[in-house]
């Protein structure tokens, strides 16, 4: 009986047969039958039967492969060429694996160091690739998509109003296959007795068709039908994620009803799982047709307001059309529209067309995005370089130990190129191992980043994943770094001075040590550069928290937002709701004062509007659109904004009263320099407003911003339903927030109140970029410091072990331990100081480049430039001290006998 079924014999045999393809073809053709016969013969031996025998057989065969595969390739080594080279590589690989296993500590140190470097690079790349670089996931042929913006003076990427969008859609069919549009809309969603507030998306009926997205379930919206008859299409498409989380992936979800802002909508379809919306950072859960905009937000007729720009427009180019043709078409369209609606198109300069693939999050952030990406890549690149230097040093140290081996090989007639090939094979093997480990690290960080949610309301979703591009990037980075850290030691080890190498008298202080010293100096310099850069960011963050925002203590300010318009309140009811809430909160014993505003400063929101100032001529290209907020009486006082002159708003500043406004000092100084602003007139929002007060200039959008003009208009004179309440707490603002929540619920239990937080937490949003930048760079700097310290320790420890004999002689000749300590310490510190000096020069250069990203910090910040180098020197001193102490303890007899 040849094979007993069930004992695994067949399986091992078929696997063995499969693995025969490892042998060169000529060998296989000739001996395949014999090999299998030999296998069968072996299989019958007593030691290879049964389960344990099977395991033994597999091990036996593996060992057989390892010995015989290179042998069969070597057999026809006579004719070199691809086969010969392959056999070399196979042999080198085998040898490298042996070296790798022989020195586990060396392997672990080298691979860990390198894995950190490669992992950081892969993680950074996967983040930047996932968010900014890759084409929009789920969209069909995303390279044909073009984003269209309106351009005004100072605003190159302006949004688009609904009527304008409709004109673009209907009049550019010669260049665009279809033109879609979208905007985010806060929604309160209820179904099955659950209600939540979320950020949905209002989209044109052809939105899904334009992106080339086919629904996973049901249908999408119907162009030609559902983009007509406002209010007549209460239908919604939900995202795949929302379908799973909210409806448990119920296949019968199509046809069910959800309530959006108090109105019933029928779910008609589910978007596919790979399409998560038109932005890479957000995943809106619900899409609603544009024609329902006025139902969702009844207070304002967005569909007919040509001047209300809130949509992003995206067009799909017709086959054969170019973006240039599209640009020309848009120019012609603007000329037509200017004739038809002279009032609305007076100031628009043109349209800006950007390829969707190049738009990133928003084209106006393009320079910030590429700036941040560049900084990140430079930083992680430097880290990888430091890691490579470390590993190169480890290899260099080992290469010195192996000079004898290399010398013998060279003298036996191996060409230098052949030996270098062997050494490079070894370093590539290391770098690929490290690359695999680094990929693990990147996966971890991608998972972290994907679950990151900024402290701002929204359907955030960072889709960062390890895709083929990331794999390719990691592979290339690994191989390049393998080459970088492998080449220097390879050249060093194969130094043609083979004779002295064989004799084993390689001078300890020769080139090898000099090369590692140079590497250590470079490493010190690089880590210092990294640390000073992150130091500057941290200092900038520190400075930012000390900036005066222009209002009093944010720690006991409570803020909360609501939008009764979402629940279908019309103007009078909204106003009544806010009045009542204002009164009740003001009456709380925990609250000293209270006010309303359109939005709290230093968040992400801002609005600006064009102004005209009688008696002031705007220069061409000068920005005429200025920031503003609507505020109630009590707001200026509650915030503690300093009033320079005039008065603040009162309850009487309403629609019936005379139109009055408050401006900041910067505003007053710009338009009425040297005069009092009181009594002056500003024309905006269709009315003439008289200035009754001037406040100090504060910070409005970000703490780092330049002083800018700002105006406050009375909220009682211009209606808005979505407002934010600010309350000055006596004590803990959390208590006040709780009370606000309760009061709002008492007024209308269905009305969601959102963004409840202390002003301090709210300001965290403005500090988020600096905080993220600082902590990421700080982490990288720390990693760099660790790597540098490990590097210098390794080199010094190695040098001490090599000089044991010399040091022993010194001690034997009467040198005291203190002087030996001083000698070794001195040498190490010399390297450190030299590297530090070099790093300082590099950091000075870099700080110039960083200057633009820092706020309120001198690029030559004295603290960053003294504390950081001092820390580096201190840490390296410790790293040098440890081997030096060992050197001082050297036992002269043992050291002299040792060789």
């Amino acid at each position: 009986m040849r094979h007993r079924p069930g004992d695994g014999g067949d399986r091992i045999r078929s696997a063995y047969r499969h693995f025969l393809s490892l042998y060169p073809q000529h060998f296989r053709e000739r001996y395949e039958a014999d090999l299998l016969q030999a296998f069968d013969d072996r299989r019958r031996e007593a030691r290879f039967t049964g389960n344990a025998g099977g395991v033994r057989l597999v091990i036996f065969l593996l060992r057989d492969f390892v010995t015989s595969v290179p042998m069969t390739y070597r057999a026809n080594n006579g004719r070199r060429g691809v086969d010969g080279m392959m056999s070399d590589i196979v042999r080198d690989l085998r040898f490298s694996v042996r070296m790798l296993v022989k020195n586990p500590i060396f392997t672990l140190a080298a691979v860990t160091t390198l894995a950190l470097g490669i992992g950081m690079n892969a993680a950074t790349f996967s983040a930047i690739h996932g968010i900014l670089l890759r084409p929009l996931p789920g969209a069909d042929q995303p390279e044909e998509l073009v984003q269209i913006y309106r351009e005004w003076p100072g605003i190159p990427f302006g949004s688009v109003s609904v009527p304008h969008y409709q004109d673009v859609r209907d009049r550019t069919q010669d260049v665009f296959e279809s033109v879609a549009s979208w905007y985010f809309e806060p929604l309160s969603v209820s179904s099955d007795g659950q209600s939540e507030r979320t950020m949905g998306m209002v989209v044109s009926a052809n939105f899904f068709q334009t992106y080339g997205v086919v629904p996973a379930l049901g249908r999408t919206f119907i162009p030609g039908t559902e983009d007509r008859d406002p209010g007549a299409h209460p239908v919604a498409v939900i995202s795949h994620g929302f379908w799973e989380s909210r409806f448990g992936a119920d296949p019968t979800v199509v046809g069910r009803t959800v309530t959006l802002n108090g109105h019933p909508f029928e779910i008609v379809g589910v978007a596919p799982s790979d399409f998560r919306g038109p932005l890479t950072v957000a995943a809106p859960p619900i899409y609603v047709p544009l024609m329902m905009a006025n139902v969702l937000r009844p207070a304002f007729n967005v569909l007919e307001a040509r001047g209300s720009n809130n949509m992003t427009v995206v067009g799909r180019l017709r086959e054969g059309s170019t973006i240039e043709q599209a640009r020309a078409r848009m120019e012609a369209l603007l000329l037509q529209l200017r004739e038809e609606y002279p009032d609305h198109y007076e100031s628009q300069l043109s349209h800006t067309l950007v390829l969707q693939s190049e738009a990133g999050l928003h084209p106006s952030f393009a320079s910030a995005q590429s700036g941040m990406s560049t900084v990140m890549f430079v930083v992680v690149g430097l880290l990888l370089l430091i890691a490579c230097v470390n590993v190169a040093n480890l290899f260099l140290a080992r290469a010195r130990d192996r000079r004898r081996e290399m010398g013998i090989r060279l003298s036996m007639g191996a060409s230098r190129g052949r030996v270098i090939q062997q050494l490079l094979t070894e370093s590539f093997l290391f770098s690929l191992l490290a690359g695999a480990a680094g990929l693990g690290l990147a996966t971890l960080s991608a998972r972290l980043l994907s679950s990151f949610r900024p402290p701002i309301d929204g359907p955030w979703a960072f889709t960062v994943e390890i895709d083929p591009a990331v794999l390719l990037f990691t592979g290339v980075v690994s191989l390049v770094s393998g080459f970088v850290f492998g080449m220097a030691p390879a050249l060093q080890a194969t130094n043609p001075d083979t004779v002295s190498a064989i004799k084993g008298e390689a001078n300890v202080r020769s080139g090898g040590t000099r090369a590692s010293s140079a590497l250590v100096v470079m490493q010190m310099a690089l880590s210092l550069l990294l640390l000073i850069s992150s130091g500057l960011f941290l200092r900038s963050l520190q400075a930012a928290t000390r900036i005066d925002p222009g209002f009093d203590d944010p720690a006991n300010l409570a803020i909360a937002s609501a939008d009764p318009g979402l629940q279908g309140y019309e103007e009078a009811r909204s106003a009544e709701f806010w009045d009542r809430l204002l009164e009740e909160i003001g009456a709380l014993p925990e609250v000293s004062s209270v006010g309303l505003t359109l939005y709290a400063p230093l968040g992400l929101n801002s609005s600006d509007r064009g102004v005209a100032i009688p008696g002031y001529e705007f220069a061409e290209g000068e920005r005429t659109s200025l920031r503003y907020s609507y505020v109630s009486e009590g707001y200026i006082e509650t915030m503690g904004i300093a009033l320079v002159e005039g008065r603040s708003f009162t309850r009487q500043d309403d629609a019936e009263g005379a139109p009055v406004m408050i401006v900041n000092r910067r505003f007053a100084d710009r338009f009425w320099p040297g005069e009092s602003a009181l009594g002056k007139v500003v024309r905006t929002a269709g009315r003439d407003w008289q200035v009754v007060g001037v406040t100090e200039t504060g910070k409005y959008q970000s703490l780092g911003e330049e002083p800018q003009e700002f105006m406050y208009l009375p909220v009682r004179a211009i209606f808005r339903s979505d407002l934010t309440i600010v309350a000055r707490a006596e004590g803990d603002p959390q208590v006040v927030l709780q009370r606000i929540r309760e009061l709002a619920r008492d007024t209308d239990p269905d009305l969601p109140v959102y963004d409840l937080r202390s002003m301090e937490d709210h300001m965290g949003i403005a500090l988020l970029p600096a905080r993220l930048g600082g902590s990421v760079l700080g982490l990288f700097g720390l990693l760099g410091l660790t790597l540098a310290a490990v590097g210098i320790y390794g080199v010094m420890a190695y040098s001490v072990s090599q000089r044991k004999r010399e040091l022993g002689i010194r001690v034997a000749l009467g040198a005291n331990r203190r002087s030996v300590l001083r000698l070794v310490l001195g040498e190490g510190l010399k390297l450190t100081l030299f590297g530090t000096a070099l790093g300082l020069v590099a950091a000075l250069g870099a700080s110039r480049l960083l200057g633009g990203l820092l706020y309120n910090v001198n690029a030559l910040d004295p603290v960053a430039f003294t504390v950081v180098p001092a820390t580096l020197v201190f840490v390296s001193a410790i790293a040098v001290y440890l081997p030096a102490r060992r050197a001082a303890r050297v036992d002269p007899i043992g050291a002299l006998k040792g060789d």
Partner: protein
Amino acid sequence: MTGPDALEQHLPLSAAVFHVLVAIADGPRHGYAIAQDVEELTEGRIVMGPGTLYGSLQRMCATGLIEETANPGEAGLHADRRRYYRMTPAGSSALRAESERMLRAANVARERLGT
């Protein structure tokens, strides 16, 4: 043909080659029998897996130490399908030369050890 120069280049023989030659010194054998014999001869120190076995046999054929031959009339499992190997004259002189070299070396060792 292999002259004395060619003989030189084979020496010293590796342990595996030496024992393979010993295994077929008294007549042709097939591959597996050679492996078994080698294992026995070396007291289990050299166990040749299929690949190692045929890899070595191929190289030894290529260097002219052994050659393939017809089944010398053995019966047994799949005897007709197996490849048989026998020593070439070059192989036998190489084995002889190697044995003498080893013998000399062994004698020197014994002498010095005083046994």
